[in-house]
């Protein structure tokens, strides 16, 4: 078994166990902290397949911002009833739905015949490995070919955050 595969199994098992913790634990704060572990494990997976920029973004946005915002939301919406039941009566249906979706997705992935490489590769320009990096390749494409979608998505983010302020302030 190769090194990357062992690392993948370790990080992947961490991600899956932490995600199961997110949906199963009985404490809301513990669920948010489990989410942090799961998201950092996903960042590790990004590193394994040479997505350096995405791994850093994942740690910054999800590991930092999302977890803090989630913890604040939990703190601000804390009710007086301490032992509130966290799951509703749909649990068996939810479990069946999750298993069905997992089976369908896995069957589709196994049946797909996308031509793949034997090893993961960086998106950097292979012709000049000394001067090119994944950051450079991603940045170049993002600000040339995808410049208009990039600007549109930044506008979406701005509008969403202004909307969030309007919603959250005292009317």
């Amino acid at each position, binding site marked *: 078994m190769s090194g990357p*595969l062992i690392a993948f199994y370790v990080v*992947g098992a961490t991600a899956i166990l932490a*995600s199961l913790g997110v949906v199963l634990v009985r404490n*809301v704060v513990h669920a948010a902290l489990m989410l942090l572990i799961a998201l950092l494990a996903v960042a590790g997976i990004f590193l394994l*397949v040479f997505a350096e920029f995405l791994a850093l973004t994942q740690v910054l946005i999800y590991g930092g911002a999302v977890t803090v915002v989630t913890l604040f939301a939990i703190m601000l919406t804390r009710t007086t009833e301490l032992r509130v039941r966290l799951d509703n009566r749909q649990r068996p249906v939810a479990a069946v739905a*999750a298993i069905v979706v*997992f089976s369908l997705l896995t069957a589709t992935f196994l049946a797909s015949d*996308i031509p793949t490489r034997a090893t993961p590769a960086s998106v950097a320009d292979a012709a000049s490995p000394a001067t090119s990096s994944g950051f450079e390749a991603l940045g170049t494409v993002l600000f040339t070919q995808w410049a208009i979608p990039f600007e549109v998505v930044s506008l979406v983010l701005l509008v969403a955050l202004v909307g969030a302020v309007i919603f959250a302030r005292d009317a």
Partner: protein
Amino acid sequence: MLELTHLQVLSAALFSIGIYGVLARRSAVLVLISIELMLNAVNVNLIGLAAFVDRPPETRVFGQVLAVFVITISAAELGLAFAIILRLFRNRGSVNVDDIGELKW
């Protein structure tokens, strides 16, 4: 060897766990956390394809570009959704999604 299938099965597992969370949890905050898990599963899939598909690098990088957009949209969605949850809590004193059924037919 690490293959695309490994990443895709992991992505499918994270996505189904997220679906379970969305359907089974009662607190709106926990439902949102589960949605974040599902968005991350999609990102794992996109990044896996970007690394493994047998295409030149300038084509494969599109997978990472899409992942950047997914992260941005999920950040926007999270900010807006938490603002709505806060407003909901202020108006009703609870964020239990089972109690919010006014628009249910």
